[in-house]
């Protein structure tokens, strides 16, 4: 590509998209006990909606550019976490599609991969490895990870013997060291003591400054304003507003002012 053509195409364009979401929809059964047949199970994604099912999210379309910080706003049960899981590709949509260009560091259920019986050291290698880090990369970052989590004395302690605060600290430390261009954060930071939470936040800011893309789900207005520049407002499974974070939060507050 020659120089003129590139500058021409980039002139009025936003940064290249890293997440493209198009007409995204997913439905769940309302009642876990409702009868399910083999036919349902194998039915493709095109079958019609049955009674007793509802759309947790439907018709959502948006694009996220590299380096953007997006906050997802909405009350409980409006599809925020579902959207995050779809973007993380740990859930598959019934309608539309998600395209993610580049690796993802999912801070969702961060302690999930840790094995109680194994030592902290083993767990760090295991979790980092499962998220795609090579052994040498873990070797290189190991000290940094441990130092950040402040649990240097517990390297050879089985994970189950750590306090719950330590568990979250080491988990956050590992996942936040993944050298992935996209970060997905789902209220993991609600846990842990205040000092460490601030440390996590600084780490996220550091990563943002380094050009990472952030996709952030939270109920905390302060956190949302602190990290995010753009907001997505979900209500009843619909994306009702896609604007600057201040505008989205104002609208959200106005909608629920009387509640």
């Amino acid at each position: 590509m020659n120089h003129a053509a590139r500058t021409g195409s980039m002139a009025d364009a936003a940064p290249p998209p890293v997440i493209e979401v198009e007409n995204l929809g997913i439905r769940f059964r309302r009642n876990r006990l409702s009868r399910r047949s083999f036919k349902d199970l194998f039915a493709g994604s095109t079958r019609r909606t049955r009674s007793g099912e509802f759309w947790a999210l439907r018709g959502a379309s948006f694009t996220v550019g590299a380096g953007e910080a997006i906050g997802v706003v909405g009350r409980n049960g409006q599809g925020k976490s579902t959207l995050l899981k779809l973007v993380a590709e740990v859930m598959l949509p019934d309608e539309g599609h998600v395209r993610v260009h580049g690796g993802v560091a999912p801070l969702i259920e961060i302690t999930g991969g840790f094995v109680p019986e194994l030592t902290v050291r083993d767990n760090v290698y295991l979790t980092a490895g499962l998220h795609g880090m090579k052994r040498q990369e873990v070797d290189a970052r190991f000290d940094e990870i441990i130092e950040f989590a402040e649990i240097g004395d517990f390297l050879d302690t089985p994970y189950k013997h750590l306090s719950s605060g330590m568990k979250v600290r080491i988990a956050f430390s590992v996942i936040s060291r993944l050298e992935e261009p996209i970060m997905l954060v789902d209220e993991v930071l609600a846990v842990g003591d205040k000092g460490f939470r601030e440390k996590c936040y600084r780490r996220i800011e550091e990563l943002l400054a380094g050009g990472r893309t952030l996709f952030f789900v939270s109920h905390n207005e302060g956190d949302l304003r602190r990290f995010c520049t753009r907001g997505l407002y979900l209500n009843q499974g619909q994306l009702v507003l896609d604007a600057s974070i201040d505008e989205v939060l104002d609208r959200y507050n106005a909608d629920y002012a009387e509640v």
Partner: protein
Amino acid sequence: MTVASDTSALPRLERYFSALWLLARRDLRVRYSTSFLGYFWSLLDPLLMAAIYYFVFTQVFNRDVGESPYIVFLLTALLPWTWFNGTISDTTRVYLVESKLIRSTKIPRTIWVASLVLSKGIEFVASIPVLVIFAVFTGAQVHWEAFYFLLAIAMQAVLTLGIGLIVAPLVVFFRDLNRAIKLLLRFLFYASPIIYGVTDLPASLHVLAAFNPLSGILSLYRSAFFPEQFDAFTVVVAGLMSLVFLALGILVFRRTERAVLKEI
């Protein structure tokens, strides 16, 4: 439809295999770091079974099936059976046990079944020295057919993976299936040439038995010590059936994946 467009196939495959290895190692570590007997537990089950059948069929009944030394004959099938049986029983729980990891990592989800096949397979390979010890002490002759072990292991891995991919998602929706699988496994134990040989079946059952892929696979293992147990027809059918099961497994797994992820 979900597309990760800029990761090409090779690094993705590499990542799959490195994660597979990590998970299998994790399983083995957990199993061996938490128990004193460790490795010996995985041997205890097939050895006890072998001892029981050996006693029953050489001391109580007059054995006219199988070959001598009967204990080696038994172990050549019981050790691979332990691999098969253990993997399938564990796949019935795999989504339950791994649900947290499945909800937070996007590794292709066949890996949860595949890593079970691998970790149990490693245990099986680690149990082969026991077979060698028994063979030495009973004076069983090893033949060049021992090389068939490699083929048998490959076929069994394919078959077990295929069945596991069918069982794992279905159990998520039909919890009762768990019990049905237990019964089926017990039935399959007697329907497969373990305490008897493929050649001991009446001629009328020969073709039917070949469609149990374990017949061909177990007879392959056995031909290392008992070359007359090798039966080309049964082995070829077993090979084809294994591939059919894998194809079916992948199909079932793909079709149910979306629903499984919502359920766990």
